[in-house]
């Protein structure tokens, strides 16, 4: 398996809704060649270091993928050159497998880039915690309700009251 990284610039003059479709199109095009996509993230609109086709700005999109066969790259590059919305692209071979990155915040300005980088790490750590905390809460509430229903049914039999209480405490502990 070889790993590649494609960084391409999409024309900024297209509508915001269309960037999504372009990403989907390119993702589908790569997948034609039996390729596993690892990352496909938007960096956001950035100022270009020099104008390309009279565009001062461009939307940067990073695509990282692994491939078993690699003779398709020429064909794929040709597709990128012919597509009108992609104004520049570059495919680079990676030495190692890239790590999966999720929830990349779009970067607007290069100046903000430096500031955001320092904040990125705590934010990424914090987000999954919030997600995991919320879902169990809902599940617990549902469990408690179920337990109460069970109690109502069990109540008529006085002999089995004590074991039921023990079960309740165990379930709550979980």
């Amino acid at each position, binding site marked *: 398996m070889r790993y590649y990284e494609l960084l391409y*610039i999409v024309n900024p003059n297209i509508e915001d809704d269309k960037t999504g479709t372009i990403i989907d199109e390119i993702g589908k095009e790569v997948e034609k060649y039996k390729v596993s996509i690892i990352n496909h993230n938007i960096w956001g609109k950035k100022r*270009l*270091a*020099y104008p390309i086709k009279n565009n001062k700005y461009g939307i940067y999109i*990073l695509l990282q993928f692994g491939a078993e066969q690699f003779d398709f790259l020429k064909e794929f590059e040709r597709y990128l050159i012919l597509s009108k919305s992609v104004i520049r692209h*570059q495919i*680079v071979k990676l*030495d190692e497998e890239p790590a999966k990155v999720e929830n990349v915040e779009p970067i607007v300005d290069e100046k903000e880039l430096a500031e955001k980088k320092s904040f990125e790490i705590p934010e990424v750590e914090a987000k999954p915690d919030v997600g995991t905390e919320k879902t169990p809460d809902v599940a617990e509430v549902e469990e408690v309700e179920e337990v109460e229903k069970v109690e109502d049914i069990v109540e008529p039999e006085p002999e089995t009251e004590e074991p039921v209480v023990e079960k309740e405490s165990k379930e709550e502990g979980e």
Partner: protein
Amino acid sequence: MTFNTKKKYCYFKENGITFIDYKDVKLLRRFITDQGKIIPRRVTGSSAKMHRQLVRAIKQARNIALMPFTNSSSDG
């Protein structure tokens, strides 16, 4: 000889960088002049191995418009 030259050290070795990514513009900016030219190794003091990587990374960054080829005043 009384040249009082200060010994230069490779920035990358000092900071334990073994791979230079062309996307890390903040790092690459250190190694170009205001005009956008790559600063020679004899000035920066980087090792030959890392300088080769650096040059490659800067050129890749230029290709994808992350860094300028030139920074003349006429560009605005």
